């Protein structure tokens, strides 16, 4: 809810004001569009094929869930640099438990998630109780997880996971309910439902804001926004429907995003997290148990790192000795590109998802173009710095 001053200058004026005051909110969409156009041109359209876009979305899954939790970590002015190898390590733990020990997949998933929370709490305790800065703590943990990953995969090297139901998590699709014009109907139905829900909630929210005399977008601008959102969801649904429909990854990412979005926007806990990020002294004096909430945020980071590790292992259908390298940078970059403030207190998990799409579009597009991994690192590093610099300069 930005206090965009609406003058009676008409639509042109309103657009101008919006561009000025909210350029930060739109930047990631502009970046995403630019990346799509460039890659579509450079790959002769292959980038935009239903197959590749479905692939891109599934690829984004493991980074997206980690980035969502990372958003909270960054909001409270902390950081977690250990999530990359931690995800890799936990993926390997899952593989070993299932393949070598033959434990049931669901028990393994539950155990690995619990292990993730355990490590998250451990990091959180070191940061909050012992006062070791998060940067140092998590950097050290990155070394530890890297070592542990090598250790448990040293004998066997890469551990292939030959369990179809596990591999389906990141590669499988929700069973369809029938065809419509040769397309998968489920994703069309879900897409349509999503459009209806989004339009309904947006209208309801606008009415509510008008009721309490807040500034709202003018009618034509609001309509344009609704159409834009509907078209976006519609296009994604149609593209998915043309390939194999709704993937399990999308379902998981959607659930994670909705839950975190709900917590951050609707609950007391969300308020406390924003409050601590905005001014932890003031939050403490308002009676908030700051250290307990910081601990919780690290625990949630641990949980999502474990989920990310599972998604990645499932996607590769194996656990490798180098799994997870660089994930932390992707996750943090997704947050910053999605508008999370480098000085804390500001950030939205829904925007982080867009940020994750930007980062993974880069990876996917560069792969399609046949650019080597070495160059990819350089490009991502540059994009990362541009995103943060843009944020910092914009907040001045």
């Amino acid at each position, binding site marked *: *809810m930005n*206090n965009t001053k609406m003058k009676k200058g008409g639509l042109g004026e309103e657009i101008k004001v919006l561009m000025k005051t909210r350029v930060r909110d739109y930047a990631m969409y502009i970046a995403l569009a630019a990346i799509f156009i460039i890659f579509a041109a450079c790959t002769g359209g292959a980038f935009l094929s239903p197959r590749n876009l479905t692939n891109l979305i599934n690829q984004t899954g493991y980074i997206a869930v980690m980035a969502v939790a990372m958003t909270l970590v960054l909001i409270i002015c902390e950081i977690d640099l250990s999530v990359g190898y931690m995800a890799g390590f936990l993926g390997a733990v899952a593989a070993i438990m299932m393949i070598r020990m033959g434990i049931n997949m669901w028990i393994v998933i539950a155990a690995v998630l619990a292990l993730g929370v355990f490590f998250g709490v451990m990091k959180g305790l070191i940061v909050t109780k012992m006062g070791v800065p998060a940067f140092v703590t998590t950097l050290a943990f990155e070394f530890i997880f890297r070592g542990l990953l090598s250790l448990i995969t040293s004998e066997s090297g890469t551990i292939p996971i030959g369990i179809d139901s596990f591999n389906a998590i990141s590669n499988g699709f929700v069973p369809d309910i029938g065809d419509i014009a040769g397309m998968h109907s489920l994703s069309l139905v879900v897409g349509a439902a999503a459009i209806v829900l989004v339009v309904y909630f947006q209208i309801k929210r606008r009415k*509510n804001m008008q009721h*309490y*005399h*807040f*500034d709202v977008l003018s009618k034509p601008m609001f309509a344009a926004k609704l159409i834009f959102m509907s078209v976006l969801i519609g296009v994604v649904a149609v593209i998915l429907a043309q390939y194999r429909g709704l993937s399990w990854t999308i379902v998981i990412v959607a659930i994670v995003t909705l839950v975190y979005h709900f917590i951050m926007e*609707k*609950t*007391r806990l*969300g*308020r406390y997290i*924003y*409050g601590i990020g*905005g*001014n932890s*002294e*003031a*939050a*403490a*004096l*308002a*009676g*908030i*148990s700051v250290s307990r909430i910081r601990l919780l945020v690290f625990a949630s980071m641990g949980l999502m790192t474990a989920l990310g590790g599972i998604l990645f292992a499932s996607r590769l259908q194996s656990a490798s000795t180098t799994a997870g390298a660089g994930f932390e940078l992707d996750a943090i970059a997704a947050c910053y590109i999605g508008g999370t403030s480098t000085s804390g*207190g*500001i950030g939205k998990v829904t925007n982080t998802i867009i940020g994750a799409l930007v980062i993974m579009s880069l990876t996917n597009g560069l792969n399609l173009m046949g650019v080597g991994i070495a160059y990819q690192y350089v490009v991502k590093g540059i994009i990362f710095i541009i995103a943060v610099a843009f944020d910092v300069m914009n907040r001045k």
Partner: protein
Amino acid sequence: MNDYILEMRGITKTFPGVRALDNVNFKVKRGEIHCLVGENGAGKSTLMKVLSGVYKFGSYSGDIVYDGEVQRFMSTKDSENAGIAIINQELALIPDLTIYENIFFGHEIMRPSGRTIDWNQTIVAAEKLLDKVRLDVNPSWKIRELGVGKQQLVEIAKALSKKAKLLILDEPTASLNENDSQNLLKLLRDLKEEGVTSIMISHRLKEVVNIADTITVLRDGATICSINGRDGKVEEGEIIKYMVGREIENVYPRREDVRHGDVALELRDWTVYDPSAERVILNHVSLKVHKGEVVGLSGLMGAGRTELALSVFGNNPHYKLLGGEIYVEGKRVRFKEPKDAMRAGIAYVSEDRKHNGLILIQDIKFNVTLPNLEAIENGVVVNANEEIIQVNKYKDSLNIKTPSIAQKVGNLSGGNQQKVQIAKWLFAEPKVLILDEPTRGIDVGAKYEIYTIINRLVSEGYSVIMISSDLPEVLGMSDHIYVMSEGTITGELSAEEANEHNVMRMATKTEEVCNE
């Protein structure tokens, strides 16, 4: 002896909306100890900042004549080169460097080649300087290992190393214990024998009358008088008279009907030790606040008023409570963290709204509801509509001037930010409100509104403890006044008894009271 080392003539310095110094004349004789006294906000520190080049030439009007020449200091470096050294209350030493590194920081002794530091010479020179300030420590100790008193001496050694001829000390004894204070004053006398001139800002009038050759009193940004401290004994009372002596204008809305109820909050023998300062910061503080009463807590800077509020509110985990009890409505309570104090019905409105009070990047509703979100919860969901209704109520009743409660708090004026702070704590449904400097840095109109709000609150049965450095405000608003000095209550007065003189006398009382 009419040789003046310093003459400041007609100094006027304005900040947006405030005239901090108004045609101030200030003359210091060569080789004297000159004390500068005045209430908080009288302009002492501003004057010294003008002198030392913190406010550079051109940002003020008037002349600084030093050593017979008009000076144009563009930075503190310039004033240092001229031989003026200022020692601020917050010491400018680097804790993890050694004493000798600190003394010569910024003007290192170089080897003949001029490229590398001559550490041997540095240590030898540092030893000599420490000897001069009579500090018997190894110069290779780290600053961190020294107490505040000794750090102060290192600062003086540093000033001497720069060949300072004029030493400015801003409340040098405020954070020192009795022993260290005496040491420091003795040192100033010795330096005087060697021809060093000192200007000392101090609130401790007893010290001032003992040491000063000349005393200059500032009030409301103007020089009131300079008293010769050596012609017969200067009375503390005389200084106080000059420090206050202001007509109280009738800017305080009168409360109708003052009926006080039972005791809402009582503190008994509250004694707190601050390990980082190595001293007892609150010593057997006892006070009572009745229902429907405004209790003023007066005192000069560093008297321990904010520390008292924070230690009661449970916020400062490193303070050590040596003794004392809190009673809320007659019941003994213990607070481990602010949440406990809030549950018992105590709210603390911070003096530092930007750092401790508000979350500037969030909007008004977010800030107001933060301490008591439970009140607008619907299951686990914060009810956004209820929030808007509630916060709008406070916006109207406290007259917060904003186009909408979705406005970011950082965009509001100081007075409106203060009202948001008050709204926030009223929303927490307290019984006792501790307002720490509620009108600092806000304009006259907004001040009046805050006073009106305070009056309305007490008439509704709230109790208010108002910590304020503004003496007329304390006198104008309080039903009952406690005066603090150096961590103890040095006096208690009813509204009828209190006047500027007796409050200021209590606020400047020093150790003889502490030893009672």
